[in-house]
């Protein structure tokens, strides 16, 4: 009997299309991923089991650690508008170039008087300069954190039309009174609901 000849098919599949698709997706994800900004203040946040994620926009993060308070306003346009408002109320005018530099700044902790000088520097100089002494919040008269928050809330309302989320990112070892000071600043302008940023932790414990 004659054997039926099975036609041999090639076992290699054309990968080109698959490769195209995967690289397209890869490019998309790389571009949409926001690069993690290095934090000027090293903070080890305590962990918790909460699953709620902080929104992408309309957030102000107050970092507390090593006795300093840093501020990070999320969103370049809000940052820009906030700086203009702060400049106006403190009588400091910021140029277009300075505003642009400020809008890409990660968390900062510079008193407003030194901000102009600080913005003129480049990355490594900023680290060395020692200007990042934290945002003053002690005295009732010169409470810059209060004003930053107030202006950021105004700017945020104008741009997005939503209420600002205030968040505290504190180092685990910070003494509680330091946190209370920040909470008091929040409550002085009737921010009674705020978030504490924690690193997530799997399951119980």
């Amino acid at each position, binding site marked *: 009997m004659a054997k039926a000849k099975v036609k041999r098919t090639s076992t290699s599949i054309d990968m080109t299309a698959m*490769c195209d698709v995967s690289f397209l997706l890869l490019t998309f994800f790389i571009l949409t991923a926001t690069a993690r900004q290095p934090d000027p203040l090293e903070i080890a946040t*305590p962990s*918790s089991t909460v699953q*709620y994620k*902080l929104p992408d926009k309309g957030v102000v993060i107050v970092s507390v650690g090593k006795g300093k308070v840093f501020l990070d306003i999320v969103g370049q346009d809000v940052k820009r508008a906030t700086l203009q408002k702060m400049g106006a109320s403190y009588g400091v005018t910021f140029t277009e170039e300075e505003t642009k530099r400020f809008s890409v700044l990660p968390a900062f902790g510079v008193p407003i008087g030194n901000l102009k000088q600080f913005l003129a520097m480049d990355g490594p100089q900023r680290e060395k300069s020692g200007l990042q002494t934290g945002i003053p919040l002690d005295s009732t008269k010169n409470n810059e954190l209060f004003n930053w928050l107030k202006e950021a809330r105004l700017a945020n309302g104008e741009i997005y039309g939503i209420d600002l989320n205030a968040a505290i990112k504190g180092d685990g070892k910070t*003494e509680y009174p330091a946190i209370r000071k920040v909470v008091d600043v929040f409550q002085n302008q009737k921010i*009674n609901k705020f*978030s504490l940023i924690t690193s997530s932790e799997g399951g119980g414990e």
Partner: protein
Amino acid sequence: MAELDTSSGGGKKGGKVRTKKQATKVDLTAMVDLAFLLITFFMLTTSLSKPAAMEIAKPDKDAKDENRLELRESQTMTILLGKDDKIAWYMGEAGKSAPTIEGFGDIRSSLLSNKKKVKESTGRDIVIIVKPTDASTYKNFVDIMDEIAITKTNISAPAVDDDPKHILDSERDFMKSKGIF
């Protein structure tokens, strides 16, 4: 697709010297593997890098008295956060019962048992007051809020009273005597 047409066009015959045909096909499998690996990485990191946020609600500082809620002493548990990651807690009114001192490892079982006791004896839900003292750290505060959330002890948010003036003398004295203030 990636292959080029290497066959000669017309099919001319003749004594031409045949060059050896080389395969133009490249094996893309490894490249695809790599691309998918990177895709997976980027997909996971974009959603995971968002920090988790714990919601805290505090009562208004200068709230009018009409909105205040009176707490029954039978259903309140006060938690004091002290030095060296120690907790002192007591049920009911301050000074009437001696507070219990615990570490963070045991507080969960106490929370659960107190919750059950209050529910059985009064039929009401337990109300928790957290008082972080100046000696406690931020981590203690986050931990206790987390424990309360895990044990679902408070249906509503626990009351946080961080005003140093609100720490009663009896509470302070007790904590001092135990060396956790």
